[in-house]
């Protein structure tokens, strides 16, 4: 096993070991358990950074992994332990490792009710295993297995540490997303039984699948990923889950869990069934634009802070899906940077929303106000994150949305592009409304703890910096993925 393969295994094994260590610690040493989990998350992040150094990837296939590990696991089910990272998956791997580390670190400082923070950390680490596994899997069946790992731990995070309606929200989340993943199961095996292999590298580009099978498979896969992403009208689990989840749960959900859907659509849906993707692209594009507009309109009517941010995710993921639906290299690039930007900015927004709700003991917009006076630092950060999220040039949110519109124009979807651009203007409207209500206006009541804690600054700082860096130097991500995206676009065309 060379160093790259060892790193791939480490990104999955370290959080798994950390989860066991954190969960095994007795209750009276709760803090020690959280520290153990955070150390594991930190080591995972280091391993994910080390994955960046790579030579020239070999091979001429549509996927050229920088590092690759391929071992048999269950030959009877065509399941191989086949991992790899390339330019498409690497940014998401790094983002996942970073957000999990920040969430674990945040939990060191603050554990949501009803305590038992070490178990929360353990669950976050298990979720990390699942998400990283999805991004690293190069075997279709393995991809599915990792896709399923996330479900129950996330259910537990919402159902145990969530808000008042947590039970219902958690159940809705898990049943909806299981519905998606069983369709994924059927779709995966439609492909595997027709193609005779589950190797994603061999399958990308269609692998000679007959047209009928591709259309059927793409329908199932697209439905599965549309639930996860989520795509309007399959999004209704998202607002409840995001609103009721504890802060760290919302951050992981919005920051990286949704990306399993968009990444899956790009790598598995479009990659494995390009015929089906070409056939369904106009429908996907139209639904994505509908999501942008409807998400924006619904946001305008929201009166709860976390719910507003949750619905804004529907709109932002609409841009990502629009980029993928164009089936062009530009669109795929837009989707990738849009994914990363949304993960960074919405992660930050949920951290801030959690902090505001903890201090004001309410998330209702009419009851908040005057944050500028009572907690200037918090208000400034919220303003920064909101402006980044509405897509101001120079901050991370801009590139993904702008390029998605450009890609739609180049594809000839002028009408869709215009409507999507108008949808972006809606985002400006609701975020400015949010800022007016929360930061400006008269201060309604003093906050419990107006200043920012050191732990908060530490866990938010990296996201603040990343939102600016990605906005100024988007090439940092785009250059990583350029080759991989071009190779993918070629086989799809």
């Amino acid at each position: 096993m060379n160093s790259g393969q060892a790193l791939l295994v480490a990104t999955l094994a370290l959080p798994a070991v950390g989860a066991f260590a954190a969960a095994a610690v007795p209750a009276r040493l709760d803090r020690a358990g959280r520290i153990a989990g955070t150390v594991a998350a930190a080591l995972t992040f280091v391993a994910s950074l080390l994955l960046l150094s790579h030579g020239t990837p070999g091979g001429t296939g549509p996927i050229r992994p920088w590092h690759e590990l391929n071992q048999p696991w269950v030959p009877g089910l065509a399941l191989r332990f086949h991992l790899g990272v390339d330019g498409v998956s690497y940014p998401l791997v790094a983002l996942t490792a970073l957000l999990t580390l920040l969430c674990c670190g945040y939990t060191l400082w603050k554990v949501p009710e009803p305590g038992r923070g070490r178990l929360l950390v353990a669950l976050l680490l298990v979720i990390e295993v699942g998400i990283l596994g999805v991004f690293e899997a190069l075997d279709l069946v393995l991809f599915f297995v990792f896709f399923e790992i996330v479900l129950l731990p996330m259910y537990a995070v919402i159902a145990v540490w969530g808000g008042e309606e947590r039970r219902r929200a958690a159940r809705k989340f898990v049943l909806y997303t299981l519905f998606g993943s069983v369709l994924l199961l059927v779709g995966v095996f439609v492909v595997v039984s027709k193609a005779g292999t589950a190797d994603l590298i061999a399958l990308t580009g269609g692998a000679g699948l007959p047209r009928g099978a591709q259309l059927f498979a793409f329908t199932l896969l697209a439905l599965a990923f549309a639930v996860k992403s989520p795509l309007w009208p399959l999004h209704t689990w998202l607002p409840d889950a995001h609103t009721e989840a504890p802060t760290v749960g919302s951050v992981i959900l919005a920051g990286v869990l949704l990306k399993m859907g968009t990444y899956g659509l790009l790598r598995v849906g479009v990659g494995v069934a390009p015929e089906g993707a070409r056939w369904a692209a106009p429908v996907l594009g139209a639904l994505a634009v509908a999501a942008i507009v409807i998400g924006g309109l619904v946001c305008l009517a929201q009166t709860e802070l976390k719910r507003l941010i949750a619905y804004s995710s529907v709109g932002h993921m609409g841009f990502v899906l629009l980029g993928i639906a164009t089936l062009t290299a530009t669109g795929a690039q837009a989707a990738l940077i849009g994914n990363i930007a949304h993960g960074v900015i919405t992660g930050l927004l949920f951290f801030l929303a959690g902090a505001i709700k903890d201090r004001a003991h309410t998330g209702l917009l009419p009851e908040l106000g005057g944050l500028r006076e009572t907690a200037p630092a918090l208000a400034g950060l919220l303003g920064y994150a909101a402006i980044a999220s509405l897509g101001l040039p120079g901050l991370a949110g801009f590139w993904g949305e702008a390029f998605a519109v450009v890609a739609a124009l180049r594809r000839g979807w002028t009408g869709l592009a215009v409507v999507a651009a108008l949808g972006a203007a809606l985002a400006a409207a609701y975020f400015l409304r949010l800022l007016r209500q929360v930061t400006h206006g008269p201060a309604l009541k003093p906050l419990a703890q107006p200043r920012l804690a050191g732990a908060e600054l530490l866990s938010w700082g990296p996201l603040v910096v990343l939102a600016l860096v990605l906005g100024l130097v988007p090439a940092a991500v785009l250059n990583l993925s350029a080759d991989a995206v071009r190779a993918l676009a070629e086989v799809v065309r």
Partner: protein
Amino acid sequence: MTIDQVALLPAYAAALTAVTALVTDLLVPGRRGPVLVVTALGSAATAVAAWVVGGQGTRQTFCSPAGCSYAADHTSAVVAVVFALLTLGALAFSVPALRGGTPPGEYCFLLACSLTGGVALGAARDLLTVVIALETLTLPLYALVGLRRRVVASAEAAVTFFVVSVVSTAVTLLGAALLYASTGAVHFGRLASVLADRGALVSPPLVTVGVVLVLIGLGFKVAAVPLHAWAPPTYDGAPLPVAAYLSTASKFGGVVAVLLVTVQALRPWLDVAGPVLAVLAALTMTVGNLVALRQRRMVRLLAWSSVAQAGYILAPLGAFAVAAGRSEAVLRLAVAAAVAYAVFFVFLELAAFGAVIALRGDTDGGEISEYRGAGRRAPWVAGAFTLALAGLAGLPPGLAGLFAKVTIVRALLAGGAAWLAVVVALNAVVGLAYYLRVVAVLFSPGPSDGPATVAPPRPWPLAVGLAAVTLAGLVIGVAPQLVLDAAELAAGR
């Protein structure tokens, strides 16, 4: 006619176990330990004998010019080993019930008698031997179900079970008689060769009726719709370890019988048997899951869930309904998938019942709401229960259940029965809803005031048994190839 005694060795071992248990109880009256030890050793010896005899290749006996009625081969070896392991599990779980006053000698005698039927079933190669072996498997269970003295529910359960069982046996026998009338054969090989030549049959419609009746009658043991309604009241009234044995060993026996008859005898009539099995499977899983949603008592919920699981077990055979599903390769795949799913299922189900027994002791399963706070009072048992339920729902961390689900979906899609795969997939979503309800109750806070609930004593054999079954579930979750290989061994001829 010479009789190959070696081929019969496993059945002798099981029968001898039964006699020894009774004799031991006479020699050391009133002591549970020796009887249990003797029965456990006897079951283990049966497993070893079956493995050794079956591993040597095929040994046939009770032969006539028409064919052989009894064959010790890989199939019989795998079946006998599974039955012996299930008996061992049931014995370990019986300790609380035996402490509660159930007569140990009779109890162990009946259990070992039932084991004898199971061992003979795996080796049966004609319709009559199959029916006799199944009856030997079931007959002792009537008495075992009614063993809870002075409990009306127990007596009711025994009567319900007895009546439905008699009716179903009559139905099977009627079907077998019709087949015999049409073909003049009861041996599997001969039946298949006569049935293959449809032009020479006196009355093909009569054969069709015979096929349908045999399958429906055998569906009783699996608790398949329409002969499923006995299962919930019977499980709920029976002593818990007997319910565990019923829902695992008895169901496994039914599966083996259905497989033997369909694949070996009715092979040329799969175009008739296939649609019947497909409809039975689809109805069984849907009815089981939907009714389970509304259950308030723990054992009834498990019973209805096991009805649904019977549907999943039969599902791969539904592939025979499609012409593509009747090819040699797909047939083997489907049979292996059904056996594999049944093996995965019995381990998970046994673990679930073991956990219920550990939480309840020598009482009945009780209301689901009575399990509140179990996660605090007995975290390990609740953990094992959760793992088993997650497995039954087919989700990680119950990886065994996940791979079981994958196995059947793969077999169905390889056979071209995509519609049934989608039905299975959607049923998995419904299933998760009620399994989650139980898990949520386990980990919700217990009653704070009111009488302090005293945990029932957990004798060490029960603890060891539960740990062993849970561990086995984990091992086959990580290395499902073990089960798949065994299933292929059993399916191959």
